[in-house]
């Protein structure tokens, strides 16, 4: 299972002058089991804040986040995360990065390697098993990060603009791979992006946030059949629809 309910979430930070900066304002939505949801918004709209709270890295001021009936308080192995920055441990080889979470659970070496190798194959990096992150390209590093997050078999995978730093070609390739991985592993995915193209290509639904304070502006269902062809006229049409609605309703007022 991987069913997420977010209820009336608020978050604000103290500013230097003593006033409060509201980052998230009464955000509520649900994510169904095995659904792929993109959260779309411009920089500073609080989308990363939202994701960090779902991850259990930060606590909300008020409101609740409920995963499969249990409120999220702190990090848990049920929730995996792929960060925007390169977050692989540079002192660990690829296989030891993927096996890290299993090692923390106290699993024996050969057993955790066996599981880690399965995820290494899933992201097509078997020949880089013993390489160090510094020897990998940006795209490969994020694939390892995906494998590392999946190795603990979480029900919910969070991705914070994971392909933001990559070139367009690599990015398209990784989006495709991600969808295939999602098909095999049957995870619920919440993916943050500021690219409409990426959101339309990946999502079952797109949640658009307004900039500062972050509120839910629109929720779109993307009903295009998969695999999606980003050059097709229907794709372009959906993308335009999303863009138009964002421009009319979800920009800074």
């Amino acid at each position: 299972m991987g069913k997420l309910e977010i209820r009336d979430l608020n978050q604000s930070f103290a500013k230097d002058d003593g006033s409060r900066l509201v980052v998230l304002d009464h955000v509520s939505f649900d994510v169904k089991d095995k659904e792929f949801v993109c959260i779309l918004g411009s920089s500073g709209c609080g989308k990363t804040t939202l994701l960090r709270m779902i991850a259990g890295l930060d606590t909300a001021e008020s409101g609740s986040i409920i995963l499969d009936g249990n409120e999220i308080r702190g990090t848990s192995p049920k929730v995996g995360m792929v960060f925007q920055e390169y977050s692989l441990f540079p002192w660990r080889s690829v296989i030891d990065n993927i096996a890290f979470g299993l090692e923390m659970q106290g699993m024996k070496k050969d057993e955790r390697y066996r599981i880690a190798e399965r995820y290494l194959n899933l992201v097509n990096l078997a020949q880089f098993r013993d390489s160090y992150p510094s020897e990998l390209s940006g795209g490969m590093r994020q694939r390892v990060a995906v494998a590392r997050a999946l190795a603990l078999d979480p029900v919910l995978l969070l991705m914070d603009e994971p392909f933001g730093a990559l070139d367009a070609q690599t990015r398209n390739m990784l989006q495709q791979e991600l969808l295939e991985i999602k098909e095999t592993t049957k995870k619920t995915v919440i993916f943050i992006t500021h690219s409409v193209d990426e959101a339309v290509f990946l999502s079952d639904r797109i949640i658009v946030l307004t900039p500062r304070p972050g509120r839910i502006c629109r929720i779109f269902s993307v009903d295009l059949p998969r695999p999606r062809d980003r050059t097709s006229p229907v794709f372009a049409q959906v993308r335009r629809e999303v863009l138009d609605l964002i421009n009319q309703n979800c920009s800074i007022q």
Partner: protein
Amino acid sequence: MNLIRSRVHTIRERWLGVVAIVFALVAWQCYAVFIIRNSFLLPGPGDVLLAFISLLQRGILLTDFKVSLMHFAIGLGMALLIGIPIGIAMGWNSRADEFLNPLIEILRPIPPLAWIPFAIIWFGFTPVSAGFVIFMGAVFPILINTYTGFRGVSRIFVEAGRMLGCTRTWDQIRYIAFPAALPSVVSGVRIATGVGWMCLVAAELFGVSNNGLGKDLWFFYDLHQMDSVVVYMLLLGLVGLAVDMIFRYYIDRRFLKWRTGEVA
């Protein structure tokens, strides 16, 4: 082809260094024999070699070498045992930082050799008192580099660890902060070995010990056997070099292999 060329290149580089050393030896010998003509004021390489052989045969050198290494091991060992945990505590916990920082900033600028009187009073004429002086020289570079290393641990690594179940403080230090800080810790230890080695000579010179390379350097000066003094000078330099080589070639390759691909 490239490999051969680079091989030839390194051989040529090495040869240049050897040529320089040979040249210096010849110049030294000529200067000593033809110009100074007084082996007390300037013993030549030949005198030094003879003194070296004689010292070796009498077994003095080996004893001195062992004693000095023991002093050094005591000092550096204590510095590691105390410097690393305090550095970790201060780098990881800002309360510990605020608490200890002023104290350390006051103690740190005191030259290690200024501790010699208390080394003698507290520990007497034992290896521990030489070790203590070395400790005072070595502990601060280790502590400060451990501290800065831990301060610089990227938040993203700690958070990635938390997402993967590394949530206890001890685990975060052991599995994330320590390996991330290791390059800085190692370079601190390397600086500490250099400082410690210099303190060793001084500590032994001031009579904290009965044997050792520094002690006997002074002893032979008192006997006006300057050729033996030069033997000790050269030995001290070579051991210092050897310790540094261990760091440059062994420790870096063994523990910091992952950094080879990075711009360090």
